[in-house]
């Protein structure tokens, strides 16, 4: 896409930061977001008619707010680094995949692998999340108001996954050092994932996450903490013969 088209689109019809995807190609939206520089005055963006589009607002690296009015497809907000994205609808697979910092809030449900491999920032799902939520998370914080599906937090390395509802089967399979807080039932725990004691520092951490995610009327003490038994990823001298 020639740069001139982008600036033209911005100058003429998008001075207000409103992009109607029924009229403007997705690439122009994402290019305009990528063209933002530090200190830009254009800090509030709105995306209309996403209608399940893939890759809406991926790779944004400036602290702007982006309100997406409707449901999105794959990878919304992927690699987000500092922006605050709100999806006023549901999100397809891979919302916030590899987020670095900033926040993403999904007002509806999220499909598979929400927040996968995320390294930072806060992902809030106000509805339910599907399977593999937080798979391979590496520092992201994820708060799900509803339930999460099976194989969530698989090989999760660090960060916090908070679930106000229930978790599906094989939660935290092969987990490293991420913390999982579940308020409801857990279908089953994956290999090397165990329930752990809730110490004061965990209660404080969880309360802070609940506050930042806008959760009210729920106490940190209602949750159970799960994490790694550390028998799988640490070398165990008793197993030396197996190698």
């Amino acid at each position, binding site marked *: 896409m020639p740069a001139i088209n982008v600036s033209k689109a911005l100058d003429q019809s998008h001075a207000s930061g409103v992009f109607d995807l029924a009229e403007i190609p997705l690439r122009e939206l994402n290019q305009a977001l990528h063209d933002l520089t530090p200190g830009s005055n254009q800090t509030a963006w709105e995306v209309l008619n996403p209608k399940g589009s893939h890759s809406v607002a991926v790779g944004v690296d400036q602290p702007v707010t982006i309100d997406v009015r409707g449901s999105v497809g794959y990878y919304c907000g992927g690699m987000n680094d500092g922006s605050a994205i709100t999806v006023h609808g*549901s999100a397809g697979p891979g919302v916030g995949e590899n987020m670095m910092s900033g926040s993403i809030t999904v007002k509806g449900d999220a499909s598979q692998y929400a927040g996968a491999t995320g390294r930072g920032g806060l992902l809030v799902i106000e509805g339910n999340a599907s399977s593999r939520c937080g798979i391979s998370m590496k520092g992201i914080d994820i708060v799900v108001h509803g339930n999460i599906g099976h*194989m969530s937090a698989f090989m999760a390395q660090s960060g916090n996954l908070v679930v106000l509802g229930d978790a599906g089967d094989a939660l935290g399979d092969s987990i490293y050092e991420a913390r999982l807080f579940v308020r409801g039932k857990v279908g089953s725990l994956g290999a090397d994932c165990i329930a752990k004691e809730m110490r004061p520092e965990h209660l404080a951490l969880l309360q802070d996450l609940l506050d930042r995610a806008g959760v009210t009327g729920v106490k940190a003490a209602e949750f159970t903490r799960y994490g790694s038994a550390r028998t799988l990823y640490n070398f165990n001298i008793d197993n030396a013969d197996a190698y």
Partner: protein
Amino acid sequence: MCGIVGLFLKDKALEPQLGSMLSQMLISLSDRGPDSAGIAIYGAPSGNEAKITMQSAKPEQDFSNLDAELAKAIGAPVSIAVKSTHAVVRTAPAKVDEVREAIQALRPDIRIMGAGEVVEIYKEVGLPETVVDRFDVRSMTGTHGIGHTRMATESAVTTMGAHPFSTGADQCLVHNGSLSNHNNVRRELIREGMKFETENDTEVAAAYLSSQMAHGKNLGEALEGTLSDLDGFFTFVVGTKNGFGVVRDPIACKPAVMAETDQYVAFGSEYRALTKLPGIDNARVWEPEPATVYFWEH
């Protein structure tokens, strides 16, 4: 990848639009699979005739005068409506097997896509839009239908390798995924007497369901069986004469979204496929659970 769609109408007022709604849904998923596309439409039952959908690589030659030759061969009236490379043969329900045999004897190169009282199946190599235009699917009416756009993984890009696959009267299936035990299951089904047209894994899934239903199971029970008897990745959308079903394997990697209103139940590989359906903004939209059978019947 592949894209699959399904639409089951509850509101009769929408039946004239079934073909256009399903076409639009399928076209919206074109970039999930550009190799070939297909659609099965369940029309209104006429009560006294059956339909056989057939396909030929040389339609002008193969379909020419075939109605008269078939009528003569079976001793009963036969009509043929040609649509591009496909044609629908109409005959008395009791004559279906005889007509199939006569077609194979008179025109050995013709391939049978499927048969039943209400189903018509159209599939070809090409993009969904090309296939939909070629067969004028938008003008078709009906009660329910399923569609598929293919990115081939398990067998060749050919007309017969396209979905839907039909292996029983008014039964057909579309599949997103790949099966790993299809050769074994095919061998077992062949021993039972099932016939196969291709080396395709999805045809085995269709034949498995046909076999289960022939043994007296309903659609829901047959779909339940896929969870223990088929190994691999799958989201299946299945049509029967009066029913519509969905099942995903327990791992459920293959995407799926469903929507239900008072007017319809719809399935799409992605939400994109559902965005132009009437009343979608107020529909109940959800992701079907893994290893869970969903089915509706008229």
